[in-house]
C-alpha cells in the first residue's frame, strides 16, 4: 500500500507540474501550483513520508486515511470525469485462423481484415456510506455495451487516448440509467449489512430509553395509587401526575426519533467518470483453396467480447470449426459432406445428386457428364469428349 501511495503521490504532483524529488524516505515537493496550495490550505514545500515513524514537524504523512490524500482526491474531482479511450488489439490473422479453424481439405491462400468500430461505455461510480461517525466508500465500474451490462476482460488490450470527436453517443443517457439501476442492486448487499449492524445499536439505545420511560410511568402510577389510597403525605394532584405521564410519552417519542436520526444511514452514489471506449470488431476475409476450387470465407471477430462468428455450412447452416470445401466450391460440415463413389473426393449433397445411368452409383460433377444426345448422366469413363463443341457424348450414342 505504501508503495502504491508513493507512486500515486509522485504521479499526482508531476501531473500538477510540480517538482518531485525522491529522497528515499521522503518526497520533497516544490513548485506546487498556487491553486493547489490554496486548495490544500498549506504552503509548499511539502515533505511527504509514508511511514508513521518518519512523521514529524514539517512532514505530511500519507496514509489511506490522511488528509492530504483526501485533498489530492478532491482536487481531481472536477477533472478527468469524461474520457475517450481506444482499445487496441493486435490481431495476427493467420494464427487466428489456425487457432479457430481446422483446414481439412484446403489451404489458406490469402486473408485480409477490415475493422469496424464500436463504443463501450464505462461508468465509474463512488458510493459513500455515512453513519454515526463512520464513512465508507466503494468504487464500482459498470460497463455497458450495446444496451447490456457486460464484464469485459481488458488485459489483452493496449489502452490509449483517442482523439476523435465525431463519435456517436446518442444512447449515453439510456446507458447511464441502466448502469445506475445496476449499481443500486450492487450496493444493496453492503447497505443491508451496515443497516443490520446499526439496527443492533439502535435497538439497544431504544430499549434503554423505553425501560427508562416505562419505569418513570410506573413510578408515577405508584404515586397516583398512593394518593388514591390516601397513603401519601405529599399533596400532589393526580391530574397533574397524569399530565406528567403524557409529557413523558411525548418526550420518549421525541428522543426515539432523535436516536433514529442519529442512527440513520446515508448513502450517496456519485458518477465519478464516464469513459467512452472505442474498440474494434474485425471482419476477416479468407480465401481457401482445395484442388481447383477456391472459396472466400468471412469470419467476424469481436475481441472485447471474445466473440467469433464462424462461417456456416452452406447446407445445414451450422457454424463450422473446420473448413471443408466440396469440389463444387461449397463450404460444408462433416455431416453434409459426402464422398463421390467414383473419385472418393468430398462433395456435398447439392453436388452429388445424380447417379451414373450405367453403374447406378452417385458420382460428383467432376466425374460425370450429361450426354448431349441421350441426355443421360453418365460417368466420364463412358463418354467421349467432343472437343469442337466442347461437350460430351456417350459411347452408346457415338
Amino acid at each position, binding site marked *: 500500500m505504501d508503495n502504491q501511495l508513493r507512486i500515486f503521490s509522485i504521479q499526482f504532483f508531476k501531473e500538477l507540474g510540480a517538482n518531485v524529488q525522491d529522497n528515499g524516505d521522503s518526497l520533497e515537493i516544490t513548485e506546487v501550483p498556487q491553486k493547489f496550495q490554496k486548495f490544500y490550505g498549506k504552503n509548499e514545500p511539502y515533505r511527504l513520508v509514508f511511514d508513521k515513524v518518519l512523521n514529524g514537524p514539517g512532514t505530511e504523512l500519507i496514509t489511506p486515511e490522511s*488528509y492530504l490524500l483526501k485533498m489530492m482526491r478532491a482536487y481531481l474531482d472536477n477533472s478527468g470525469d469524461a474520457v475517450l479511450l481506444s482499445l487496441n488489439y493486435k490481431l495476427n490473422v493467420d494464427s487466428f485462423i489456425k487457432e479457430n479453424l481446422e483446414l481439412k481439405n484446403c489451404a489458406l491462400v490469402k486473408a485480409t481484415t477490415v475493422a469496424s468500430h464500436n463504443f463501450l461505455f464505462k461508468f465509474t461510480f463512488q458510493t459513500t456510506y455515512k453513519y454515526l461517525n463512520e464513512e465508507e466508500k466503494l468504487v464500482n465500474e459498470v460497463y455497458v455495451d450495446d444496451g447490456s451490462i457486460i464484464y469485459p476482460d481488458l488485459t489483452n488490450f493496449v489502452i490509449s487516448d483517442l482523439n476523435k470527436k465525431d463519435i456517436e*453517443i446518442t444512447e449515453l443517457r439510456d446507458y447511464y440509467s441502466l448502469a445506475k439501476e445496476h449499481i443500486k442492486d450492487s450496493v444493496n448487499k453492503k447497505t443491508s449489512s451496515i443497516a443490520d449492524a446499526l439496527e443492533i445499536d439502535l435497538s439497544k439505545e431504544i430499549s434503554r430509553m423505553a425501560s427508562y420511560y416505562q419505569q418513570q410511568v410506573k413510578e408515577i402510577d405508584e404515586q397516583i395509587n398512593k394518593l388514591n389510597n390516601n397513603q401519601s403525605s405529599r399533596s400532589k394532584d393526580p391530574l397533574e401526575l397524569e399530565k406528567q405521564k403524557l409529557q413523558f410519552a411525548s418526550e420518549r417519542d421525541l428522543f426515539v426519533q432523535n436516536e*433514529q436520526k442519529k442512527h440513520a444511514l446515508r448513502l450517496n452514489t*456519485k458518477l465519478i467518470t464516464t469513459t467512452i471506449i472505442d474498440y474494434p470488431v474485425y471482419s476477416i476475409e479468407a480465401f481457401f483453396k482445395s484442388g481447383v476450387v477456391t472459396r472466400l470465407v468471412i469470419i467476424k471477430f469481436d475481441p472485447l467480447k471474445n466473440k467469433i462468428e464462424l462461417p456456416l455450412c452452406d447446407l445445414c447452416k451450422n457454424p463450422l470449426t473446420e473448413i471443408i470445401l466440396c469440389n463444387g466450391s461449397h463450404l460444408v460440415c462433416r455431416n453434409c459432406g459426402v464422398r463421390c463413389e467414383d473419385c472418393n473426393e468430398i462433395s456435398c449433397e447439392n453436388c452429388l445428386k445424380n447417379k451414373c445411368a450405367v453403374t447406378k452409383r452417385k458420382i460428383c460433377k467432376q466425374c460425370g457428364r450429361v450426354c448431349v444426345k441421350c441426355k443421360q448422366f453418365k460417368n466420364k469413363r463412358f463418354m467421349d469428349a467432343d472437343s469442337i463443341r466442347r461437350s460430351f457424348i456417350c459411347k452408346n450414342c457415338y
Partner: protein
Amino acid sequence: MAIIIDESFSDDDFSVLEKVEQRKFGSVDTAKLKIDALTLEKNTELNGLISYDLIKDNLTHKLKYQTDGALHILREMNGSALLADEVGLGKTITTGLIIKECLVRGFVSKILILTPPSLVDQWVAELDEKFNLNFKIIESESDWDKSDLVIASIDKVKIFDNNLGKFRHEKAHEIPWDMLVVDEAHKLKQRNTTRWRFVDRMQKKRFLLLTATPFQNDLLELYNLLHLLRRGHLGTIQEFRQKFLLKGNKRKPLNPLELRRRLQEVMLRRKREETGINYKKRIPRVEVVNLTQEEKRIYDSICDLLKTKYFSANGDELRGKLIIYAILPKVTSSSRSAIESLSKIAESDKYHIETRQRAQEIIDAYGNLKTDSKIEKLIEIIDKILKNDKDSKILLYTKHPTTLKYIMEKLEPYNLKIVEFMGGLTREEKTEKIAQFKNNAQIMLSTETGAEGLNFQFCNVLINYDLPWNPMSVEQRIGRLDRIGQTKDMQIYSLATKDTMEEHVVDLIINKMCCIGLVIGELPTILFNLGLDSPGKMGLAKIEEMLMDSFIDSKNNLDLFAKGVGDISKLIQKGINEYNDAKIASSEALDGQPAQNI
C-alpha cells in the same frame, strides 16, 4: 425499529454526462489518477485523526492525550460525551480536534458552542488560530441563520420570555445541530433551570459537555448532567437514588465502582498527573512603592479632583462611572499618562473652570517633582532580577501606550535590551518581536493588546507596572507565561503604591485571585460559578465595576474603599471554597481518590 436509509444519487452526475455530450474529454492519465485516489483513499474506520496534519503546526504542544481523547470520544462514544478532564489539560483543544475531524470527514456541518460570556471571544480566537475555523458569535436572535458554525454566550441565549411564553432565542431549537458543545457544563446541574431546559430542547446528533467538576454538592447534579446527555443512562431519579445515593451523604456514592463503570461509558476524564504535565507555581511579589510627600499630595489631589471637584462647564457634577473609569487608570498608571489626561481636562472648555484650574495645578505640581518613586521601584526590581539571574527574561506590562513610552525613556540610560510590543503589529512583526525577545532581549515591554494570545513560556518573570482592575485581564497577562512548556516557577511582580487604593486592588487581584495556586482556567470557572464573568451594567467586567463602585462610594476614604474590597474578597473566597468542594467531590466520586486542594 427500522434504520432510516437515505439513498441518493448525486446531482452532479448530469454535469459529468453533459461533458461527454459536449465532447469535453480529459486525459486518461488524470482519470486514472482520480480512480487511483478513490481506490487508495479509505475512510472505513476511525483509526486516526486525518485532520491533525492540517493543524498540527498551529499547536504549540502536541499532546497525545488530547488526540487520544478526541479519537476516543468520536470512536467509542459517537461524538457524545461528558469531557471532564481536570482543568489545564486543554478541553478546548480536545474539543477543537473533535470538531475539526468531524468537519473534515464531512460528518457535521452545523455546530453550536455554548460558553460562559467571558469565554466567547477566547473560543472564537482559539478555533480560528489553532483550527482555522471561523465561528460566528450569536449577538441577536437574527444571527442563527447566518453561519453553520456558531458560538453563543449561554447566559445571553437561554433567556425565557415569560410574557411570550417562549425562549427568546427559540430559533436555536428549530435547527437540527450536528454537534452541540456546552462549556462549563456544571452550570447545568439543576433540571428546573431555564439554562438546563434550553439545552435539553436542542436537537443534537453529537453532544459534548465540558466541565472539570461535574458535580459539587450533590450527586443528583451529576445525574442531571447525564440525564441531559443520555436519557435514562443512570435510570430514573428514584432508581438513581436507590442505587447510588448514600443516606446522609449526598456527595459519596453508595456503589462507587458501579457508578464509575456507568460513567465511563459516557465520560472521559483524565487527571493532570496521568498526563505527565508539570505545572509551575505562580509566586506573587507585591512590590510596595512608597510615595514621597509631594507625590502623595499629588495623588490625593487627583482623587479629590475626581471624587469631589469634577464638574462640567455648567456646574453639573461629573460622577459617571465610565468617565471616572476612563481617567482613573491613566492617572494612576504613570506620571506621564496622568499629565496627559489632566492636560485634556485643563484645556477643555467642557469642564468647569474650577475643575480645569485644579487639573492645571496638579500638572504644575508634577512639573516640580524631583523623583518618580514608581519608576525608581521598577528599576530597582529589574536590577534585582537581573542580578539574581542575568539571563532572566522579563515581560513588563502596562495598560497604557503613554506609560509604555515613558518607561522606555526612563530605562534607556541603563543599556537594557528591550523589545517594545504594542497593538497594531502584523503577525509577521509579532513573530519577529517574539524571536528578538527570546534570543536577544532581556525585557519585553508590552500592552495587553500587544501580547494577546501569544506564548512566552520561555520567560518566567512578569512585572505588572500597573494593574487592570479586571482579574481576567491579569489572568490573561499571566497566561502568556503560564502555559504547558513553562519550566520554571513564575515570579509575578506587581507594583502597589502604599496607602492608595492600588495597594488594596493589587492585594485582591494578585494575592486573593490570580496567584493562589489555581491552574490556568480555574479562575474563569470560579467567576462563572459566582455569576461574575459576564459584563456588568456599564459593560465592564463585574469585579471591575464593583471596585469602581467602592471607589466612588468611599468618597476618598481609603478605609471605606478597603472595606468594599474586603467584601469582594469574601465573595471570591466563597467561590473558591465551593469550587474546591466541587473538585474534591468530583474527584472522589469520579476518580476514587481525593483531589488536590488549592
